Structure formats: structure tokens, C-alpha cells
């Protein structure tokens, strides 16, 4: 049987034949590319190793950025905090918070509770010593929602009288130990401003006891129940701020909008989370940029390998062309070779990053073991999507670096290498 000299006049292939033909050629081209990579095993290994280190470094740094963010945001947004918002008076305090405000907010759907806060000024006395103190009058729930941590003692109850929680800074002023609840009582003079702007004592309470201590060396603050503060000889109508808790995150935005619409300003934890996220986005970019340097170095190595591979194989390419390989076939051989290198480099990069993470955690564990009460936090967060993105990225690098050598191979004249002999 002889094949026709030219195909003119012969029926073309059916669609199925054409598909079979294209699939077969793709498989064969892949096989040939793999064969070439196998033949130059050491060079393949070193090139993919270079890519792996670059991609691995990027994954390591980016997942560390994500991990740190997760850690910070996680601690902010834990438990009730996400469902809580702080309501402050409107801009320039033209819209003060009073009892009617609280009543209005309580009437909204999905409200779990509303806790106002007043700030008073006072002077505390212990024997001869005397100091100015800021008194914050809130219910214990307010402090719980703020995740206030006590170093000693307990929070007061709503109906406690003449009991307060103080900052360690307050105890320090009186020369008392700051890590334990003192067994002394203070005389507290609540002060206010009279009509001629003079500070005057409004109410005096002897025998104020301390039930708990908050660690805050820098502030001289005392907290006491709002119910008790209301019994004092004060005539303030307005609150400094209020805490509002809703029953679900879904309600949060609705309630926030309703309050803002009434002229108040509202801060939610979600806002803070977004703020932190934007900071970490930049950290991630910086860490990613460091990784890009590593990848750039690896890319140059890969470009070098593919160019050498082309120069070494000009004769092979020539022979293939004289046997009927089209320029496009040659281009595909080279591009697949590059893409396989990129894919292998990407997969190895994930492995490198994994070992890097494990090694870091191991070192942190050992260091934590040396410190009393040390505990290890997970500083890496590796979502699947990030890994997929990096695999695609590795192949994109391969495509870019492989393009020029493939183009040179494509343009090579069939006789360029053969003629020289």
C-alpha cells in the first residue's frame, strides 16, 4: 500500500478521527517531554529544586502572614465580642445618650441587652494619702463584654454597695501590692463642677472596699456598679457610652444602621477586625514580596536550564523537523517540558513549605518548653486555595520562562544543525 503523494482530492478526517489524533499527539508530546526530562535527571532535579525553594519560601511566608492574622483576628472576634457594639454620642456630642436612647435601642429586634457607662471623678483617701481617681460606673456585664481580665479578686455584683474593682495603677499610688486584693477601705469623695466652674465635693463615702484588681499600671481607675452610682447625689442625665449586644451577627449590621440613623456613632468589633485585616494584608504583601525575590532567582535558573536544553538539542530539533514535525510541534515539546518543570517545582515547593512550617513549630515547641507557662500558638494558616494558587503561579512562571527558548526552537531552521556536519 502506498500513501498518496498529496492529500488533495482525498476526503478529510472525521471529527472523531481528528479528536483522537489531537489527543494522541498531546499524550505523545507529553511522553516525549517527560522522556527528555528523565534523560537529564540531575538537571531536572536541580531546576525543579530551585523553583521549589522559591515557591516554598513564598508559601511559607504568606501562610505565616495568614496565620498571624488568624491569630490576632481570632482573639478579637472570640465569643460575645463579635455580637457587641459600642454606641457613642453623635459627632460634637449634639446627640447625647440618655435613658430615652436606651429605651429606643431596647425596642429594636434582636437586642439581647443594653449596658450604659457613666464616668465620674473622685478623690480617694487612705490615711494621709490622697489621689484623683476616675470612676467608671458600669454593670459587671459591661466589664464581661469588654473581656476585662482580673489579676486578683472578683467582679462586683449589680447590687453591691461600696465595692469597687480598681486598676493596679491605683494600688501603686498608695504603695499597696498590685497583684492581690488589699484588705483596706478607702474614703472616696465624689466631685463635680458647680455653676461657677469650681470643683466641689458632691458626695463622700467612707469605707469603700476593693473586691478585685485589673492589671493596668498606667491608669488610676475604679469601677463600681452603675446601680450604686445612681444612688449618689449626682444629677447627670447623660451616659458616656453604651454597650449593645445583639443575638446574631446577622442582626448586627441592621441594628448598627438603625442606631447610626438616629445620629449616634457606632463601633463594632467587625470594624476593628477589618482594620486589623487591612494591616495584615500589607504584612502579607511584604512577606510575599520577599518570596517573589526567591522566585525571581529560581526563574532565572529555570530560564537558563531551558535555554541550555534548547542549545543542546538543536540537532535533535533539526532531525525532528526533517522528519515532519511542525514548528508548532517543536514549540509544544518545549512548552510542555517547561510546564512539567513548573508543576513539579510547585508540588515540591508545597512540600518544602510544609517541612519549613513543621520545623518552625518544632523549634517553637522546644523554646516554649524552656519557658515557664510557655505555650505554643499556631502561627501558620494554610488554606487549600492558597496552595492551588501557588501551583498555578509556578506553572505561569514556567510558561513565561519557557516561552523564549521554545520560540527559538520553533524558529530553528531544520538544516541549521545538520548542515554543520
Amino acid at each position, binding site marked *: 500500500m502506498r*500513501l498518496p503523494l498529496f492529500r488533495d482530492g482525498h476526503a478529510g478526517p472525521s471529527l472523531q478521527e481528528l479528536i483522537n489524533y489531537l489527543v*494522541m499527539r498531546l499524550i505523545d508530546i507529553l511522553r516525549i517531554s517527560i522522556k527528555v526530562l528523565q534523560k537529564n535527571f540531575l538537571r531536572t532535579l536541580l531546576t525543579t529544586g530551585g523553583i521549589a525553594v522559591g515557591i516554598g519560601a513564598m508559601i511559607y511566608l504568606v501562610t505565616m502572614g495568614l496565620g498571624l492574622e488568624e491569630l490576632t483576628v481570632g482573639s478579637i472576634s472570640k465569643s460575645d465580642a463579635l455580637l457587641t457594639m459600642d454606641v457613642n454620642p453623635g459627632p460634637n456630642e449634639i446627640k447625647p445618650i440618655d435613658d430615652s436612647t436606651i429605651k429606643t435601642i431596647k425596642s429594636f429586634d434582636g437586642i439581647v441587652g443594653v449596658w450604659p457607662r457613666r464616668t465620674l471623678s473622685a478623690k480617694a483617701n487612705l490615711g494621709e494619702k490622697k489621689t484623683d481617681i476616675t470612676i467608671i460606673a458600669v454593670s459587671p456585664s459591661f466589664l464581661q463584654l469588654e473581656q476585662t481580665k482580673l489579676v486578683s479578686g472578683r467582679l462586683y455584683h449589680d447590687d453591691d454597695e461600696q465595692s469597687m474593682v480598681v486598676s493596679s495603677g491605683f494600688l501603686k499610688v498608695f504603695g499597696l501590692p498590685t497583684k492581690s486584693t488589699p484588705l483596706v477601705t478607702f474614703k472616696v469623695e465624689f466631685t463635680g463642677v458647680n455653676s461657677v466652674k469650681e470643683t466641689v465635693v458632691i458626695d463622700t463615702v467612707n469605707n469603700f472596699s476593693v473586691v478585685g484588681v485589673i492589671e493596668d499600671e498606667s491608669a488610676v481607675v475604679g469601677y463600681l456598679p452603675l446601680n450604686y452610682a445612681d444612688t449618689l447625689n449626682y444629677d447627670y442625665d447623660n451616659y458616656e457610652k453604651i454597650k449593645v449586644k445583639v443575638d446574631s451577627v446577622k442582626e448586627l449590621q441592621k441594628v448598627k444602621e438603625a442606631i447610626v440613623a438616629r445620629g449616634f456613632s457606632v463601633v463594632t468589633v467587625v470594624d476593628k477586625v477589618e482594620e486589623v485585616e487591612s494591616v495584615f494584608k500589607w504584612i502579607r504583601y511584604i512577606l510575599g514580596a520577599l518570596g517573589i525575590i526567591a522566585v525571581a532567582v529560581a526563574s532565572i535558573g529555570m530560564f537558563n536550564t531551558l535555554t541550555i536544553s534548547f542549545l543542546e538539542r538543536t540537532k535533535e530539533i533539526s*532531525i525532528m*523537523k*526533517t522528519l515532519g514535525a511542525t*514548528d508548532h510541534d517543536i514549540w509544544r515539546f518545549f512548552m510542555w517540558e517547561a510546564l512539567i518543570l513548573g508543576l513539579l517545582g510547585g508540588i515540591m515547593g508545597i512540600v518544602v513549605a510544609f517541612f519549613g512550617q513543621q520545623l518552625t513549630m518544632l523549634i517553637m515547641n522546644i523554646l516554649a518548653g524552656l519557658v515557664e507557662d510557655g505555650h505554643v500558638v499556631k502561627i501558620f494558616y494554610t488554606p487549600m486555595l492558597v496552595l492551588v494558587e501557588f501551583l498555578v503561579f509556578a506553572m505561569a512562571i514556567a510558561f513565561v520562562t519557557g516561552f523564549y527558548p521554545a520560540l527559538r526552537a520553533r524558529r530553528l531552521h531544520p*538544516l541549521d544543525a545538520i548542515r554543520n556536519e
Partner: protein
Amino acid sequence: MYKVEALTKSYGEGSAYNEVIKDVNFTINSGEYFLIIGPSGSGKSTLLYLLAGLETPSRGSVHVRGQDIKFFDQNTMATFHRINIGIVYQSFHLLPSFTILENVAFPLVLQGLRTKKREERAMEVLQRFGIDALADHLPSQVSGGQQQKAAIARALINMPPILLIDEPTGNLDTKSSQEVMDIIEMLHKQGGRTIIMVTHNTEFIKYSTRTIHIIDGKIYDKPSDIPSSSSPDLETMNLMEKIKANQDEDIDEFMINPFDKM
């Protein structure tokens, strides 16, 4: 089948201008064993490459079955190489990282044939040439004669109607040369193929159906047509051939296959 008209090939310009093929005209009929004989540097390989469409003529044309191959686009040329012609080189030009079987089957890869089918076909051809036992060897692991047989097998795998052969025995010892000559003779007689061969080996003249001579890029039908001013004259050439044939055994030691070193 082939019609060559006013074919000229030159390289370089100005003072570097060099005309390798000079206004050549000839025709080759279907089924011919056509021999182009000439000494080294006479332009015979360039002429073969022009016939194969691997070189582009500077002037003139090469027609195959009425079509000027100069005007083939890239894909038509690739198809022409894949299906219509088989090329055999002096230096075999096997793919060094492919086994003998893979080398022979390679044109079928380009054709898109399934692995099983192309291996079967390649094995058939290898068996025909008695080198099927070497199927899994790399070219560097077999002798020059065996490599040339594999190269011929590769050129034949697509059963092309035209076989272009460039100095097939140039790198072979006497015994292998004879085997290769016999194979080509068999291909001509049994297959009825058009065989076009360029060589400086006058031994082939007895097998060919027609011989032309090429000296300094010009074609002569008979040795007597060659002007005496041309060098070297055919007599000297024949003499050199005979001397060379006697020394083949010794020379073979120095004929190193370029792939062997890789």
C-alpha cells in the same frame, strides 16, 4: 515525478557570494534509482536538500508531481516530509535519547498513530532489516551499520514513495556498506520506489537506473561531458575510491560516530 528547472543555490553576498548549485536542470521519473555522483564539496548534499525542500532555491524551481515545493506553507511541507519522502543521512541522525524502536516509530508519532500500532509497525520493519533484537538499545549502543539500517527503517516507516539518500555508506565499513547497498537495491526492486541518492561512491553506479555527475555545482549526464578543467576529474576520483575501498578496514577505526561520544 521530479522536475528541476534552472535551479541555483547561493550563499552570502558581495565578496562572500558563493554559488553552490549552478543553473541545474533535470527530471526524475517515478520508480527510478537516480544517482547523483560527485566528489566532496561538489554541492551534491545541497542539491539533495533542495529536492527534499529543506533548502530554498535562490533561483529556479523544484516541482514534485507538478507542484513547486518552494510555495508549500509550513504545514504542507511538514506533511510532505512526513508522508511523501524519507531521508537517509550519512551521519544517520538518529535521536540520541530515543531507543532504536522509538526512533523508527517517531514519524508515526507525528502522524498521530496509537503507541501499540506504531510499535508493531516499527518492529516489522526492524525485523525486515534483521535488527529487531536491538529495538531497546540506544543509538549509541549499536554499530554504525546498525544505526544506518535503523535510519533507513525510519525513513521507510511511513512507506513514502520517494527515498532521498545522502551518502549512505560514508561512515560504514565494507561489510556494512554492502549490506546497506543490498537493502537499497531491494527497496528499489521490491517496492518500486523512486530512489534518489547522492554519493561519491562509484560502486553504486551499477545499481542505479540513471546516473548524473555533479562537479562544482554543475550537472553532467556523462563523464565524457565533464570539461577537463574541472577538478578533480572522474578518473582520479575513481582511483581514490579504489584506494579508499582497500583501506576501509583501517579508515573505519577513525570514522567515529558522533553519537558514540555522547
